[in-house]
């Protein structure tokens, strides 16, 4: 298989331009998404309806935002196992601010996001300064956040019944008020906005550049006079910000902070990132890929459910899809 687009771009020297590997994986992921959508649409008339598609998008939002954040650390060649439970802790703190302390909703939301950012900062510090491997440092943060969420909430859900506006963050529809009938929940809007911010951050700013440099060759980057420690901390904090945002979204969607939820979300987020073509060894990846990866996971779950495949089996299928996606990536690498 030749990895060139026939008759497409050629550089100045007339050599065919090879598709950047990330772009190819994205194309692959995007094609898989289209194939899945077509397949499920043909299999069931209930699949390709407006309300079902909106349902899919809504169920993608929380995991999607988590996956956006995870993309950053994974491109550095690191990992963040704590995003699931930090998300929960952020949700709980949002509940504490708004319901227990009566803080205005916008400030409560900000508090929730900052909780995530703070956890990311701590992970970043222990990785960059204490030189603890990312896997271990974030595993510890995962436990810490899980425990704190239970302690702070007294193991009981915190409801937002006194602040009905909070629910609107995820489930209201700003778009509907602009274009009547176009009832897309805000959570979906937030997800796509976050994706755009993430994509710009990664592709256009200095953080993004260092992100790729770190993942490509950390020691060479350090020897280029880059303050690697600082940028690692910044990147883990960015992941924390997205995680905090995911926590707020989740709390709003459930109209409550559920302290027992969250465990395992980090793995789904990582799965979405990997399916989207970001390499776990670092240096390669895109936000668009992650969005597609997250959508593939939701479409798969939703479609299988509509086809009445039992939930247990849905999980099995997702597992195989992850194997397949990563194997496709390895095959492509080997061919080079």
């Amino acid at each position, binding site marked *: 298989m030749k990895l060139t687009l026939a008759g497409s771009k050629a550089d*100045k020297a007339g050599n065919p331009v090879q598709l950047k590997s990330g772009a190819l994986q994205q194309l692959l992921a995007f094609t898989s998404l289209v194939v899945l959508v077509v397949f499920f649409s043909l299999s069931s008339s209930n699949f390709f309806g407006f309300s079902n598609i909106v349902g899919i998008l809504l169920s993608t939002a929380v995991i999607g935002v988590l996956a956006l954040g995870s993309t950053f650390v994974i491109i550095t060649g690191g990992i963040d196992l704590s995003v699931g439970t930090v998300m929960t802790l952020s949700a709980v703190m949002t509940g504490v601010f708004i319901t227990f302390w009566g803080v205005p909703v916008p400030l409560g939301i900000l508090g929730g996001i900052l909780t995530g950012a703070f956890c990311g900062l701590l992970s970043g510090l222990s990785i960059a300064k204490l030189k603890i491997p990312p896997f271990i440092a974030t595993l510890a943060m995962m436990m810490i956040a899980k425990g704190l969420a239970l302690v702070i909430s007294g193991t009981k859900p915190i409801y937002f019944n006194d602040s009905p506006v909070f629910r609107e963050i995820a489930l209201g529809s700003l778009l509907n008020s602009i274009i009547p009938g176009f009832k897309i929940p805000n959570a979906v809007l937030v997800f796509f906005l976050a994706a755009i911010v993430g994509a710009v951050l990664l592709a256009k700013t200095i953080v*993004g550049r260092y992100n790729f440099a770190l993942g490509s060759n950390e*020691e*060479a*980057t350090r*020897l*280029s*006079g880059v303050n690697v420690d600082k940028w690692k901390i910044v990147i883990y904090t960015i992941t924390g910000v997205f995680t905090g945002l995911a926590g707020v979204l989740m709390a709003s969607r459930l109209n409550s902070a559920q302290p027992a939820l969250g465990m395992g979300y980090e793995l789904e987020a990582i799965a979405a990132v990997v399916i989207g073509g970001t390499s776990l060894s670092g*240096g390669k990846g895109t936000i668009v890929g992650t969005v597609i990866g997250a959508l593939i996971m939701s479409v798969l779950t939703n479609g299988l459910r509509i086809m009445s495949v039992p939930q247990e089996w849905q999980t099995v299928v997702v597992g195989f899809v992850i194997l397949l996606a990563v194997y496709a990536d390895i095959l492509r690498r080997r061919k080079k």
Partner: protein
Amino acid sequence: MNGKQLILMEGITKSFPGVKALNSCRFELLAGEVHALVGENGAGKSTMMKVLTGVYQKDEGRIAYLGKDTEIPDTRTAQDLGISMIHQELNLAPDLTVAQNIFIGREPRRAFKLFLDEKKLHEKVMELFRRMNLQLDPRKLVSELTVAKQQMVEIAKALSFNARVLIMDEPTAALSDSEIEDLFVIIEELKRNGVGIVYISHRMDELKRITDRITVMRDGTYIDTVRTGEVTTDQIISMMVGRAVYHESVPDAKAASEQVVLEVKGVNRGSALKNIGFSLRKGEILGVAGLVGAGRTEMARAVFGADPVDSGEIAVHGRKALIRSPYDAVKHGIGYLSEDRKQFGCMVDMDVKTNVAVASYGAFSGPFGFMKDGAIQVASEKIVETLRVKTPGVGQTVKFLSGGNQQKVVIGKWLTRDCDILIFDEPTRGIDVGAKSEIYKLLDELAEQGKSIIMISSELPEILRMSHRILVMCEGRITGELSRSEATQERIMELATKRVLKEVM
């Protein structure tokens, strides 16, 4: 000595893409003999021994083992024949015991091979140690041993394969004087048992003491084999460097100015660097010569802040500079070009412009950290043009460039960052001959433009051709400084092998 012939290698030729590493080389080893193999870095000593141990395959020539022509297609065969090599880097598992390391993969077992037979294992090891006259507890963890003792374990391991030929690569490099004495005792013991020992070392005093014969190699060719007692140290050195120095029109370098840009004082780092001090002037190329392991790279990394130092002072442009990381060094205008480009020099999976810009992202970013991609494009295109980098474009992935062009990209990185002190560690390693002179020209030009350059190199002709001044290092110390007019290959080799005698403890 006077034992029977163990090994005879004749007419051994070996080529690698672009290089003839060995050209019809010869080596003979007798039973009960210690035979030194000497030569400069790159003379072909290791390649020769790798052919003997089955790591490389010879292109031409023959190997006779105990008088019979023998093929050694892989390392396993060499081991079975009883040919073992003790490498400079020891291959032991630190968390296993001495005995477990020696018989790793060949552990005696009992009860239908289900269980390890610890008792038998220790008996076998003790037997081995008795033969070597070695006092060592086989139950000790390797990590608890000194380097010298670990080396003894390696030797024991080799003997456990019934080694008749033992190749030792710089065995004393990491040993103290008293440990060296212990090693020599073992070597004498092995000689008595009829083992033939190939002894690779640069230390003339040791060679004189321990070896029976010396084979000299140079530039991949066999020079001569002599009886140790019949030659002087000077004779050996001149055989090692004997080639005509190619005075490839040394550019009448503008004498470097007197202005000191970098002053290093009293830098110490463990046993790797001892009291390093020197100064670098504006527009100067300061060559740093020395043998492998002399501490040249360590010195460069210390000045660049890449490794922590125990003590020492650095002043840049007359002002004291606190350099604790490469980040600090680069802020002071110091750039470092590693000898290992692929690992430490560039991001091989990234394109040319990313590699050129990575050290200067701060300057290429505007408000809110947005990158000025247009400026990066322009700057990297300019680098490609001025450094004459052969690439289809600045979007080319660096791993597809040749070694010389990769090196230019790394130089471009530091020029883009406006570094005026450049430390080149083996700037022409892995670069083919044509591209070498291109790099030399570039270095000359940079110096003329007022950049100050420290150039570490293992190639003496390169050092002699390029440098205004030469520092010679040996065992973590600067053992001498030579001006261009004083410097000769012989003089450098002498300083590079000058072992500082340690005080008696």
